[in-house]
Each structure stands twice: as C-alpha cells, then as structure tokens.
C-alpha cells in the first residue's frame, strides 16, 4: 500500500471529536412547516406584529420557490415537513446574568473548549453563545454598552432595538433572495445582533458560538451586523454539532452593513459534524452571507475555515457600492470522506475604484468533492475596479475531486481582473523530507497543510488562528501511514 493510500485510510477512520449530545429538557415546536408553526414561533418569542408579518411574507414567497440545483453537490432532498423549526432549552425563568444560567448548558460549552466564564475573565472576547435556538448568554455586554455598542441575541434586539432591526433586517439579503434565505426569513429562531455606532472602534473581538444539539432540528440563525460610518468591528463565529445519523439542516443568514469609512472583519471557523466515513448523517449547511459596503471607503473582509458539514453551500459576498470600497474573501475549505463543499464568493463592484481580493484554498481528501465557485461582477458605473483572485486546490489521495468555477462579468472596460489557480498534491517527497528530520507523518501532514493555508490563517485573529490550526491538525490526526 502506498503512503498516500495509508494516509487516506487513517484519515477516513478519524472520528468526529465533538460527537456527543446532552439530554436537556427542550421546549420544542411541533414537527413540520406551515403558517401555524410560524405564528407559534413568533408568539413563543413574543414578537411584534411587523416581524410576524415579515416572516409570513417570506414564508409565502418561499412556498412559491424552487430548491436550487445548480451547485456541484448531490444529496437526498430535505423533507421540510419532517423537521422541527424551533427547539429551546427549557428554562423556568429568563436568566439575568451568567450566574443564573443552567450549569448543564454552560458545561456543554466547557466541553467545546469555550468556557464563557473563562473567556469572560481571561480572553477579553465577548461571546454570544447560541445553543439550538436561544442565545444562552451574552458576555461583556456592560463594557460594550458604555461605547454605545449593542451586542446581543437577535430576539433581544427585536425587543430592545426594534427600530434598528426593522431598518436593516433584509436590507442586504432580501427575504426572497434565494430559497434558503427565504426559508430562514420565515422561521429564523435566534442569532446575534451587533451594532457599532458612528466613529466607534470596537475594543474587543465579538464572538458567537453556534451549536446544534436537538435531533431533527433545523438551525436557522439570523445574524445582523451594522457598522455605522467610521466604525470598526471584528466578529468571530464558531460552529459545532453533535454526531447524529440523520442529516440536520442549517440554513443561516448573515447580513453585514458597513457605512462610509467603516470596516467589518468577519471570521468563521466551521466544524459542523461532517457525517461518518460512509456519508451517513452530518449537517447540510446552506448559508447566505452577504455584506454591503454602503459608504465610500468602507471595507468588509470575510475569512472562513470550513472543516465540517456533509454538504456545504455557501458564498460570503460583498456588494461594493461605495466608491473606493474594498471587499475581501479568504477561505480554507477542507473536505474528507464523503463531504461535499460548493463554496466561494461574489464580489459585486458598483462604486468607482472598488477593489476586491479573493484567496481560496481547498483541501480534498477521501472521496470528497470540493468546489470553488466565485463571481466577479463589474457594473457599468464601476470605473477602475480591481479584482485579484487566487484559487488553490490541494489533493490527498486519488479518489477526491477539486473543481473551480470562476465567473467573470465585466461591464466597464477600465476594470482589471486577475485570476490565478493551482492544483497540487501533498507529495511523498515533502512527507519523507519531514520524516527524515524526525517529524512524524501525522505532524508532517499538519505542517504542510497549515503552510498551504497560511495566507488565510494569517487573516484570523490570534486566538482563532491557533484554534483553526489545531482543528486542521485534528482533522488530519491519525493520518500516519
């Protein structure tokens, strides 16, 4: 057996580390999806009438839509009537502070390695943790409030800041944008809301940790980040899910608004359960993420490290509306076993002198399929638009696939668009060279993969970069021949 094959064998026998679930009493919606369920969710969350109306409008639009099939992924169709659209840990009363939160819930996060208490004390990161559908706790709220920064669960924002939610909800991703965005708009359960007032530089990283716990639960979070003129925020999101045989659906929507001279950095490390090595179970991750550089000189930067999910369908995008605005997309997507990922970005240049940069690093192993799909669109008015795209693929073994689908649509002749693509394999030469210096094959693979992904990992905030590096190494653990 060649070394490549051995690596492959070991790689495919690697178990998902976060595969456990906790039995807690859940407050659940009945199975299925119809207007009644939506009313039930809205009532459960004590929402105002306008939001219920908004949900219902989205639901009716969704009913008339077709599930998209253009992505380079195949999976059995989701039966939307067999899903549960709301599942909340049962609580007798609402917690007022971290100390009042069910210790069992907090223990879940401890196992995930993100102890809220720890983080609160040591790391200076504000965390909004979403377990299934309810935001468990938001730390550091007080510190942020002094600066006028709002960082809370989406439901809370609906209650406390309805005018902001009403103004920006659906402004970047319209409710009818696509099939899953419409579904999310109809049934979204919770998520995070973040508002940075004009001229404020958020002094800490804001972080959300998502986790799907209940079986047959679709998790539909809604994240809204608004950065007013001349503000700055760095936002982190991490995700895991327990191991289950059935597929779970995750259809989130993230909207980012950046005013003039504002900058938003959005980083994700996604580690949803990818299914077992035969492709059983795992998360369907159908996510719409989009940001708008609404003002001049604004900047939105997406960084993602994707290691999980059975099927991923995700294109964090930037609408570069303001003149001189900048959009960036840095991505590492790892697929293994039977995983399928179709991910990339869209950069839509509307304003003058807008710039975008795309760096995508795919890593495929096992029998997985990894596709990059990117669109660069330069509109008529966007004179002197610039784009640079780099799409690299790294293959492990000979049963996986890497695909690149770049779309370029230029309507202004002054545009300058560059695209570079490479495909490589982890060489036995590289592994042997490491071995000869005393490095085990497992560590050699981790070293080589981290080196390959370095340009993207460098974009992550320090603590996250370390976590992402560990995650990459972990995904590749047991790959010794």
């Amino acid at each position, binding site marked *: 057996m*060649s*070394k490549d094959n051995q690596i492959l064998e070991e790689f495919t026998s690697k178990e998902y580390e976060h595969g456990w679930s906790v039995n807690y009493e859940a407050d659940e919606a009945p199975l299925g999806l119809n207007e009644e369920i939506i009313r039930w969710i809205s009532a459960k969350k004590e929402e105002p009438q306008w939001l219920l109306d908004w949900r219902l409008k989205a639901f009716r639009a969704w009913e008339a839509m077709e599930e998209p099939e253009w992505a380079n992924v195949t999976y059995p169709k989701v039966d939307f009537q067999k899903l549960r659209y709301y599942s909340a840990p049962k609580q007798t009363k609402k917690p007022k502070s971290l100390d009042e939160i069910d210790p069992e819930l907090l223990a879940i996060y401890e196992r995930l390695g993100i102890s809220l208490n720890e983080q609160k004390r040591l790391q200076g990161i504000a965390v909004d943790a979403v377990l299934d559908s309810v935001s468990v706790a938001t730390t550091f709220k007080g510190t942020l409030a002094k600066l006028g920064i709002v960082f809370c669960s989406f439901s809370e924002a609906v209650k406390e800041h309805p005018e902001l939610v009403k103004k920006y909800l659906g402004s970047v991703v319209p409710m009818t944008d696509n099939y899953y965005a419409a579904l999310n708009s109809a049934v979204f359960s919770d998520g995070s809301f973040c508002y940075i007032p004009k001229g404020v530089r958020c002094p800490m990283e804001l972080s959300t940790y998502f986790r799907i716990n209940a079986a047959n639960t679709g998790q539909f979070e809604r994240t809204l980040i608004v950065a007013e003129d001349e503000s700055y925020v760095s936002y982190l999101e991490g995700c895991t899910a327990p191991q289950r045989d059935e597929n779970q659906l995750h259809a989130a929507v993230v909207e980012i608004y950046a005013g003039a001279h504002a900058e938003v950095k959005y980083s994700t490390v996604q580690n949803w359960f990818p299914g077992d090595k035969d492709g059983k179970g795992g998360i369907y991750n159908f996510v719409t993420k989009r940001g708008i550089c609404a003002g001049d000189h604004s900047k939105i930067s997406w960084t993602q490290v994707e290691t999980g999910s059975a099927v991923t369908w995700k294109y964090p995008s930037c609408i570069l509306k303001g003149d001189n605005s900048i959009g960036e997309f840095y991505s590492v997507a790892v697929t293994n076993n039977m995983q399928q990922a179709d991910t990339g970005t869209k950069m839509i240049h509307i304003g003058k002198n807008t710039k975008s940069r795309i760096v995508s690093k795919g890593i495929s192993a096992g029998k997985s399929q990894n596709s990059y799909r990117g669109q660069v669109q330069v509109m008529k008015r966007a004179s002197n638009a610039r784009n640079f795209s780099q799409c690299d693929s790294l293959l492990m073994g000979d049963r996986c696939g890497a695909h690149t689908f770049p779309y370029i649509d230029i309507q202004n002749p002054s545009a300058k668009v560059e695209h570079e693509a490479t495909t490589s394999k982890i*060489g*036995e*030469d*590289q592994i*042997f*060279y*490491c*071995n*000869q*210096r*005393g*490095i*085990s*094959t497992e*560590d050699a693979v981790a*070293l*080589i993969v*981290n*080196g*390959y*992904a*370095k*340009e993207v990992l460098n974009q992550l905030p320090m603590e996250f970069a370390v976590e992402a590096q560990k995650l990459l190494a972990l995904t590749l653990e047991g790959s010794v021949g």
Partner: protein
Amino acid sequence: MLTIKNLHAAVEGTPILRGINLEVKPGEVHAIMGPNGSGKSTLASVLAGREEYEVTEGEVIFKGKDLLDLAPEDRAREGVFLAFQYPVEIPGVSSTNFLRTALNQVREYRGQEPLDAVKFLSLMKEKMKLVEIDQKLLSRSLNEGFSGGEKKRNEIFQMAMLEPTLSILDETDSGLDIDALRIVSNGVNKLKSADTATIVVTHYQRLLEYIVPDYVHVLYKGQIVKSGTKDLALELEAKGYDWIKEEVDAAV
C-alpha cells in the same frame, strides 16, 4: 557505528544495490564515489528509509539497532541525517518553524524537554554562524525560491541544529559554486567530532579537497568494487571511471 552487510535493494522490481558491505566507525569520514547510475544516491536513500526503495536482502546495524526495522522518522531521531541532493520545498512553512518542530520531536524521542522559543532561537543563532546563513533566509518558506547554494547551506544548517551521529551528504557539492562549496564544507568540518561519522556521496573529487575522507569507496553496478584512501579519489580524478569499469567487467 554503522555496519552494512550484503545489502540488496530494488526500485519497482529493478535491482539497484547488489550486495553492499561497509563498516563505518565513530570519527570517520567515508566517501562513496562512482559513475552515474552506480547506486550512490540509492544507498543514501535506503539508509534514510525512503519508501520507494525495497530492501530485498542484507542488514544494516546502526548503534546496535536494526536500522531497516525503524521508520524514517525514528532513524532520524536515532541520529541518521541525510543532506538531500534536491532539498524539498514546503510552501508557507518557515525553516524556523520546521526546524523547531523537528528538533522538539527528536528531543522528545530522546527523553529531553522541548526547547522553548528563547532557547531555540539562541541555539539557532549559534549554529547560524557555523554555516554563515542569514536569519532572513530562515524566516522564508522552507527552500522555496532558494538558490542552489542556499538550499545546500540550509541542509547543513539543519544538520548543525539536529546534531546527528551519522551524516550522509548526498551530492551536496552539485550545483555549488566554489565559495558556497567552501562554506558548506567548513560547516561540515566544524561539526565533525570523535563521536560522529560522515558518509559523503559525490561524483567529483573536488568536494574531497575540502572534506578530507579517511576512506574512499567506488560504487559500480550496485557494489563497492574498490576501496582506498583519499589517493584513490585523486586517481579517479586523473583517470576517470573507465579503468575501474573495465577491471570489473573483465572479471565477470
């Protein structure tokens, strides 16, 4: 230190080594010379444990252990170092990061504490002088975009850091200009001690003016057909390999 007995090895079924016998003692420098295709680099690769080479017969004992029984990384940890003829590029991994990973794994194997960043850097500074290597080179991606001379110098630098007991230099002189050759050889000479040994695989006598061997062996058709002192290398330089080939071929 190293005993090679009747070593046979093949690549994809084609025999390359056909019965090598060699004894290397601490403090010695052995030169392996020979025409192209004689099996010099194969010998170096087999000792280091490269997978494509299948050992079909014979044994190799290193410091009392069966070397062929050890995985490549364990051979390295036991103290076998191969300076590659073609050092491999690893994009995005700095030499510093690479070496720190390597050194700490070697140390762990030997039951030593890992070196912290401060101690590691001071060790690096000390060894850098030995091979006149620039710090800037070490913060770049390993071997990526390095000149031929820089790659070879970096190999010797790694050797200095890992402090092997047996160093195998596989055509380290190829692609080096005279200055680089001098620097690399100086480095190797400074690293020599009464406890370590060196095997120099080379095509030319030139390198042996700098790294003076105690023994010179001529490899031809996968066997050591002639052994001698450094004078043998000079003779080869003057007369070429043809006379040896003729001697061997006539004897068959």
